[in-house]
C-alpha cells in the first residue's frame, strides 16, 4: 500500500483515537499536577436563624476569583498529589520503614494507609475473581454445548442473566439478601443459631460476598466467549481423537483448551482490567467501610461536599498505570506469539 493511501486509510481511526483517548488522558494528567489555589479566607458577620449573628470564616470570593483568573489551571504542584497520604504516601511509608521493628508491624501500618489498603482488596479481588470466572465460564460453556439443542436457547438465556442485569442492581439484590433481616442473612443466623451474626459486619465475609458477586456477574461473559469458540471446534480432530481412544478429559485437555487458548487470553485481559477497576459492588454493598478500590476513591473524591478533582485525577492516572502493569505479562506473551509466527 502506498504511504498516501495508507495515511488516508487510517486517518479516521487515528484522529478518533487522539480525540477520544489521548486528549482525555492528557487532560487528566494535567489536572493531576495542578491543585486549586490557596483559599483566601476572611472573617465576616454571619446571621442565621435561631442563632443570630456571629463572626464566621468564609472564602473571599473577589480575591479568589482574581487568583483563578490569573492562573486558570490552578497552582502547579508537580507530583505532590501522587506522593501525598491519599495516594502513594511516600513519606509515610518511609517513616514506617524507619520506625518499625518487625515485618508484621510494617505490614500492619502500611495497610492502614488508604492507597495500600485499597490495593490489598483490589488485587485480592482481581486475582481470585479472574481465574474463577475463566474456569466457571469454561465449565458452563462445555456443559451447555453438550446438552440437547432444543433446550440450548433457554439455558443460554438464563445463563446470561447475571451479566445482563445491571451491576449495581445485581449488587443491591445480593446486598439485601445478606442483610441480617434478609433471606440469606437470616438463614445463616438460623442455621448457626446466632441471632447476632451479621454477614455485613465482618470484613472477611464482606470480601467473600464481593468476590462471589464478582464471579457470579462475570462468569456469563466468559461463557459466551468460550461457547462461541466451541462452535468453531475442528470436528475432524475430535473424531480422530475419539478413534484413537482419547477420553473426554483428554479431548478437553489436548484439543479443546489449546483451541480456545487465544480466547482465554482475551477473557483474562478483559477480566484483569475490569476487576482492577472494581466499583459498583462496593457501592451496591455499601461496603466502603470494609473494602475500597481506586475507582471508589475517585467516586469518593468527586462526590459529597468536597470535590477533590486533583486527587481524583491522580487516582485515575494510577489506575491506568496499575492496569498497564497487570496487562503487561499477557501483552508480552501475545507479542512473543506474534513474533514467532512472523
Amino acid at each position, binding site marked *: 500500500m502506498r504511504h498516501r493511501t495508507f495515511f488516508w486509510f487510517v486517518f479516521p481511526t487515528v484522529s478518533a483515537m487522539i480525540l477520544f483517548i489521548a486528549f482525555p488522558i492528557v487532560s487528566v494528567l494535567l489536572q493531576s499536577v495542578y*491543585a*486549586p*489555589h*490557596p*483559599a483566601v*479566607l476572611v472573617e*465576616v*458577620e*454571619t*446571621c*442565621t*436563624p*435561631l*442563632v443570630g*449573628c456571629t463572626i*464566621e*470564616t*468564609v*472564602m473571599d*470570593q473577589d480575591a*479568589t*476569583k482574581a487568583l483563578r483568573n490569573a492562573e486558570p489551571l490552578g*497552582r502547579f*504542584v508537580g507530583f505532590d*498529589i501522587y506522593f*501525598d*497520604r*491519599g495516594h502513594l504516601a511516600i513519606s*509515610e511509608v518511609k517513616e514506617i520503614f524507619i520506625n518499625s521493628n518487625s515485618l508484621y508491624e510494617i505490614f500492619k501500618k502500611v495497610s*492502614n494507609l*488508604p492507597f495500600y489498603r485499597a490495593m490489598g482488596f483490589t488485587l485480592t479481588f482481581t486475582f481470585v475473581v479472574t481465574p474463577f470466572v475463566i474456569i466457571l465460564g469454561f465449565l458452563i460453556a462445555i456443559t451447555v454445548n453438550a446438552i440437547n439443542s432444543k433446550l440450548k436457547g433457554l439455558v443460554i438465556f438464563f445463563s446470561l442473566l447475571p451479566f445482563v442485569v445491571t451491576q449495581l442492581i445485581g449488587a443491591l439484590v445480593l446486598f439485601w439478601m445478606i*442483610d*441480617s433481616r434478609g433471606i440469606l442473612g437470616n438463614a445463616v443466623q438460623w442455621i448457626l443459631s446466632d*441471632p*447476632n*451474626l*451479621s454477614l*455485613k*459486619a465482618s*470484613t472477611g465475609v464482606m470480601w467473600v460476598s464481593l468476590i462471589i458477586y464478582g464471579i457470579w456477574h462475570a462468569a456469563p461473559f466468559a461463557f459466551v466467549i468460550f461457547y462461541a469458540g466451541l462452535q468453531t471446534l475442528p470436528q475432524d480432530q475430535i473424531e480422530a481423537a475419539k478413534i484413537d481412544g482419547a477420553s473426554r478429559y483428554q479431548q478437553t485437555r489436548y484439543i479443546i483448551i489449546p483451541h480456545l487458548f487465544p480466547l482465554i487470553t482475551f477473557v483474562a485481559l478483559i477480566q484483569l482490567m475490569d476487576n482492577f477497576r472494581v466499583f459498583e459492588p462496593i457501592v451496591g454493598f*455499601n461496603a*466502603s*467501610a*470494609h473494602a475500597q478500590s481506586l475507582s471508589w476513591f475517585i467516586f*469518593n473524591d*468527586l*462526590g*459529597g*461536599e*468536597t*470535590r*477533590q478533582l*486533583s*486527587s481524583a485525577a491522580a487516582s485515575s492516572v494510577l489506575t491506568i498505570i496499575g492496569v498497564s502493569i497487570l496487562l503487561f505479562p499477557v501483552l508480552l506473551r501475545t507479542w512473543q506469539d506474534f513474533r514467532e509466527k512472523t
Partner: protein
Amino acid sequence: MIKKLFYPAIFGFALFFSIPVFAGCEISARVSIIGNEFPAIQTVGAGAQECKGAEVTSNLTSEHKDIQVPGMKGNPAEYTSAIISTSSIVPLMNEDLIRPLNDLVAKYGKDLQSSQLIKIGDNIMAVAFMANSQHLMYRADVLKEIGVEPPKTYEEMLSAAKIIREKGIMENPVGGAYAAGWNLGQEFNNIFMGYGGSHFKSGTAQPNVNSEAGIKTLNLMKALSEYMNPDFLTHDSNATNAEYRAGNIALLNMWGSRAASQTTADGVIDAVKNNHSIAGPMTVGGGSIPASTLWWDGWTVAKNISDEEAEATFIAMMNGIRPDMMQDQKIRTQAVWLIEGYEPTDAAIGVFESAKMSTTPYPMLPYMGILHGALGNEIADFLQGKESASQALADVEAAYMTAAKEKGFIN
C-alpha cells in the same frame, strides 16, 4: 352517604378558595430546583411548582450534595435554585455559585421575617424556611414497661438499652444512622459537641479532633453500637427509620425533620404508631450543651443564570414558603417552619428543645466538609475493632490534612 358528599364538598371548597391564591404566582422564565428529599422539602418544591407561566422542574434526591455543584457550575446553570442546609450551602459559596438576594428580597420578600435571611456580611445569600436538629425519639410503651424515664443523657440511654435487652424485649434496642460516610461523621459531630469538643484549633484550619473529647466520643459510639443492629455501619437515616417503624428499636437520635413521618409512612406497625414519642436532644458526660447540632434549611438562587430566571426562581420559591401554607395542619407538622404564622405542633418539640438548650450550630466553615468526610470514612475502622481510638483519630486528621492541603486551605 354523608361522608360521600362531605369530601367532595370540602375538596371543592378548598379548590374554590385556593385558586385566587395560586393565581398570584406568575413567572416568565424557567425554574429548576435541586434539593434533599424529606417531606418538608417536598412541600416547598410542590409549592414552587404551582406557579404558572413557565416550567418549574424539581429534582429532590438524597444524592443532592453530589449533584448541586456540578449542576450549578455551568453557564447557564442547570439548576436555578438549590435547597440547601447549613452544611451544603458552603460548597456553593466556596465555588461562588449563588447570587446575593438583596435586590430580590427588597422587591418580592415582604412576607419574609428578618430571621429567615441568611446574611454573610452585607449579602443575603439564602432564605431559610425551617430549623432542624437531631434529638431523641423513643417508644413510650417500651420505656414504660421497664419503668424508665425518657433518657436525658447518652449514659441514661445506654442503661435503658441494657435493661431492654436484659428483659428480652428487644435484642438491639438502639438505633443510629451510623452508615460509613456522611451519616457516621455527623453522629461523631453530635457527641463530640456534647463533650465540648471543637473541630478546629481556634481561628485556624488545623484539625482538633484527636483530643480527649474525640476519644471519649469514639468510646461512647462504640458502646452505643453494641446495642445496635449488627449491620449498623450500613444503616443511613432511611434504614434506621425503617428499623424503628418495624418495631425493632426503641431509642434513637434522629432528625427532627423526620419526626412527623415516623408514624405515617407505609408499613408502620401499630405499636410504633401508638407509642412514638419525641424529646429534646441528649447531653453527655455531665455537660450541659446537647450532643447535637442545630441546622437550618433554606433555598438559594444560582449565580450563572439570567436575571429573568433569577427573578422567576425567587418568585416561585417564595410561593413554596408562603405564610398561608401554615394553615394546613399536615404541612405544619412536617417541620419546624421559620415562616410567619407557624404554630408549633407536637412533632416540633424536639427541635424547639434543641434551640432552647442552646445547641451548637453546625460549623459553617469552608473546610468543615473535608473534616466531616474524613471522619465518616476513617472512624469505621475503630467501630469494627480494627484499631485504637487514637489511631483512628490520627488517621482522620492525616486524611483531612491531605485533602485540605490539596484544596489550598492549609499551606
